[in-house]
């Protein structure tokens, strides 16, 4: 096999790949190549194709010819930069993963490769900063020990990971010296820490830390390939339904440094605001720092644009260069980009660009704005927004300023999007009891099981300490569109005493918390939430009006009340596709009449009770048909869950027996007759209408009554009658005949167009 074609070089002078080669180069590699083609300042390097990943995973090692080929590409990088890997003016390399689909944080990165006992003194001489070199060295040792020696080679089987050990040692050092943070560490401190790390590596793994630049490079490359099959990555793929066969590419690239003094810095930015979609440059940067410092949250990053400490005010030249890149990238990709950059000695280097992830609201705003800016067509805007982003944009969110002013108590996995707040309860029973009274509750459990369903139903949100994104709680919450955070490891529940600890904060039953199911964050108290209204004129309405011109399928709604109809109309429904009539009987007064009807001993008796239900039904249909004037409304004849109607409490039983003129024993006998062992397959749907044709007749009368009244008022109701649970033609015909008879009887009174 010829490895030559499987390594793609990139630099501002010569680039083999481009943005369309995502399958081969991975997303990161393809976009780096594209940036090079655009002439943007990108540190040179090369990408190992994804197919090499599966080769590696099959063989378990890099072939001799591949190693040779990597070496010849390193030489090309050396030539571009006039530095040498392991030489006098040392070149340092980074090794990063990059799969064809985005898997954020799932795979590995190793920086500063090429620092050895030979190159360290030369680097100190060239950079003029011993502190910088040893800081870089200790980062290399930690990343390498963690990713290559521990994870990829599996050398350490202990639970206490090498990374934790090293972090703890750093914390201890700072504590002894009384340093507040890393920036107080001196050259001497980093140097001595590096030495201790080296000892730790040899002691833990039984082999020394590699002191040869190519040994480091090949080790790192193998580890990044191997990380494709790491536990985290496999789980993420199975959850996101990403094929395991594609493999990851590996990007080997010259290092540039943002931590070489005050003329340096590093940052991440979005070409537009990713939460609101506004067309403003949005991002954060840190002076004198390496990339991971921005993300790690140890130092508070500064804004790219703004007053205090912003990049635009501190380094205007670099900012102007970055702003030009921002515009060029947007114009080239016709989409909002998420970029990473480093500034070394005031010179801007671009490290990454990719399609920026965005909130639902932002997706809609950006798509419609870009149509106005003539960057994309209306069709493209419709294509670009994901349907679920519309759903997300309609959910409740936490007010942005509330997020700024409140630190989360803890964090779990974002399992059900949207935000919610409520008082904490620790059992499904309590959730149901309070929820039924209209109280807002958050159900907090170690994990949920099917027995908790009823309580989950009445909860605003669900928080669990265990479980992943496919756990029971997560599945149920997403199904119901409830906000949900799962697997919050800092949550400890003490159920007996009805309190929990979230980190260091004690939470009692009844305390208010707010969940952000889109980010996984948990806040104390009631944070202000907001919900985007749809019926205002705005980007969403604009986008949907374009969609309406393209689509051919009609969209109707399932609605049982005039309120449902009104909401659906504001959302753009073109009719009612399902109006369930059984819900109309759940009201306390009506349920009593309904029970009398189904417990009647004879048809005659039943007719008496049905007559009482007729005005209710007529009123219900009148309201719905009026709202939906001129649009089709499909009414489904009664399909009651009979078992729900016959769970009767003693008080209700007493009232029934007096109304029916029966002893309570007799009523219970009749109830018993209606009990079924499998209600979902029992006496429901048209089966009920066949046993009791008078119900069908009554419903038809109610509908006709409502329709005729509306016609008299000059409106045009359009009703379609639907017969539920038909399995045999004769069932259908029997019900249809009842309806048609009623219709014929009524026809002499007025004209009505009926279909079913």
């Amino acid at each position, binding site marked *: 096999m010829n490895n030559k074609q499987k390594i793609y070089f990139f630099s501002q002078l010569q680039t083999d790949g481009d943005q369309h080669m995502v399958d081969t180069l991975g997303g990161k590699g393809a976009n780096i190549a594209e940036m090079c083609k655009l002439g943007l300042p990108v540190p040179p390097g090369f990408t190992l194709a994804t197919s090499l990943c599966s080769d590696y995973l099959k063989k378990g090692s890099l072939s001799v010819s591949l190693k040779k080929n990597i070496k010849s590409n390193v030489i090309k990088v050396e030539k571009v930069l006039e530095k040498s890997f392991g030489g006098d003016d040392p070149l340092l390399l980074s090794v990063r993963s990059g799969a064809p689909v985005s898997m954020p944080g799932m795979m590995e990165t190793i920086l500063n490769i090429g620092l050895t006992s030979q190159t360290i003194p030369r680097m100190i001489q060239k950079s003029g900063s011993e502190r910088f070199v040893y800081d870089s060295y200790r980062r290399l040792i930690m990343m390498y020990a963690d990713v290559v020696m521990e994870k990829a080679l599996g050398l350490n089987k202990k639970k206490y990971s090498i990374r934790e050990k090293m972090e703890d040692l750093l914390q201890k050092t700072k504590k002894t010296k009384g340093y507040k943070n890393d920036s107080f560490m001196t050259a001497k401190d980093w140097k001595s820490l590096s030495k201790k790390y080296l000892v730790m590596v040899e002691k833990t793994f039984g082999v020394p830390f590699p002191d040869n630049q190519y040994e480091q490079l090949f080790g790192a490359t193998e580890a990044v390939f191997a990380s494709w099959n790491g536990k985290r990555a496999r789980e993420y793929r199975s959850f996101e*339904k990403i094929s395991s066969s594609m493999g990851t590419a590996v990007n080997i690239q010259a290092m540039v440094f943002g931590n070489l003094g005050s003329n340096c810095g590093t940052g991440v930015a979005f070409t537009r605001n990713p939460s609101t979609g506004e067309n403003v440059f949005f991002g954060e940067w840190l002076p004198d720092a390496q990339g991971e410092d921005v993300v790690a949250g140890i130092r508070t990053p500064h804004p790219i644009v703004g007053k205090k400490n912003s990049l635009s005010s501190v380094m205007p030249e670099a900012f102007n260069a970055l702003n030009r890149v921002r515009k060029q990238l947007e114009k080239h990709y016709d989409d909002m980009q998420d970029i990473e950059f480093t500034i070394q000695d005031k010179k801007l280097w671009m490290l990454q660009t990719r399609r920026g992830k965005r909130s639902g609201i932002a997706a809609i705003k950006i798509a419609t704005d870009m149509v106005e800016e003539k960057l994309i067509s209306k069709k493209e805007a*419709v*294509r670009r*927004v994901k*349907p*679920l982003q*519309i*759903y997300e944009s*309609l959910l409740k969110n936490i007010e942005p300023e509330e997020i700024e002013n409140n630190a989360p108590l803890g964090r779990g996995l974002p399992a059900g999007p949207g935000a919610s707040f409520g008082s904490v309860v620790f059992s499904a029973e309590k959730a149901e009891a309070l929820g039924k009274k209209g109280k807002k509750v958050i159900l907090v459990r170690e994990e949920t*099981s*099917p027995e908790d*369903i009823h309580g989950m139903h009445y909860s605003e949100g669900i928080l669990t300490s265990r479980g992943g994104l*496919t*756990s*029971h709680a997560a*599945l149920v919450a997403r*199904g119901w*569109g409830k906000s949900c955070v799962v697997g919050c490891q800092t949550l400890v529940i003490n159920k007996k005493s009805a309190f929990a600890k979230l980190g260091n904060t004690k939470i009692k039953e009844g305390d208010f918390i707010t969940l952000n199911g889109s980010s996984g964050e948990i806040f104390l108290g009631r944070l202000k939430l907001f919900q985007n209204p*749809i019926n205002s004129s705005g980007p*969403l309405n604009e*986008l*949907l009006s374009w*969609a309406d011109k*393209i*689509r*051919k*399928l*009609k*969209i*109707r*709604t*399932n*609605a049982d009340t005039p309120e*449902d109809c009104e*909401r*659906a109309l504001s*959302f*753009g*429904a*073109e*009719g*009612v*596709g*399902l109006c369930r009539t059984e819900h109309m009987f759940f009201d306390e007064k009506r349920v009593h009449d309904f029970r009398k009807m189904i417990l009647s001993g004879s048809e005659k008796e039943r007719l008496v009770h049905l007559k009482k239900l007729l005005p209710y039904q007529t009123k219900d249909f009148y309201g719905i048909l009026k709202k939906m004037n001129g649009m089709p409304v*499909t009414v*489904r004849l009664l399909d009651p869950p009979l078992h729900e109607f016959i769970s009767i409490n003693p008080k209700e039983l007493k009232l029934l027996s007096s109304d029916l003129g029966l002893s309570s024993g007799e009523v219970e006998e009749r109830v018993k007759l209606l009990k079924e062992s499998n209600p*979902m397959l029992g006496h429901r749907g048209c089966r009920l209408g066949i046993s009791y044709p008078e119900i069908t007749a009554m419903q038809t009368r109610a509908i006709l009554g409502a329709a005729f009244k509306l016609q008299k008022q000059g409106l045009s109701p359009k009703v379609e009658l*639907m*017969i*539920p*649970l*038909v*399995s*045999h*033609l004769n069932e*259908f*015909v029997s019900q*249809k005949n009842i309806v048609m008879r009623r219709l014929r009887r009524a026809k002499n009174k007025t004209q009505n167009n009926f*279909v*079913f």
Partner: protein
Amino acid sequence: MIEVPRACLVAESIAKNADFFSFGTNDLTQTTFGFSRDDTGSFFPHYFEKDIISTDPFEQIDREGVGKLMSLAVKDARAAKNKISIGICGEHGGEPNSISFCKELGLDYVSCSPYRVPIARLAAAQVEL
């Protein structure tokens, strides 16, 4: 309303007597799989974990089984009555992948809960692109 497998199988004769069809895909999924929707919580987690099924058929129409019944019913109904109006009114009506399937089947409309109407409007447009 077409919501049990037998109705799909005899769609031709029902269509001759009916003015429209509406698939109740919740019940059709229940009765085709023989799953009780309210009881899936006890075994679905195992099904997902062991890759027995990859998506919840109550969320996304199972094209292979339930979908085949629907497709058969549409074909036979249209053979009996060319212009018969056909839609769906299960919760699938607001789920993008299922909407795309409804388009493939040649349905006239989908019906979903009010909050899903905007999603359905966009998804129905994307199917045409």
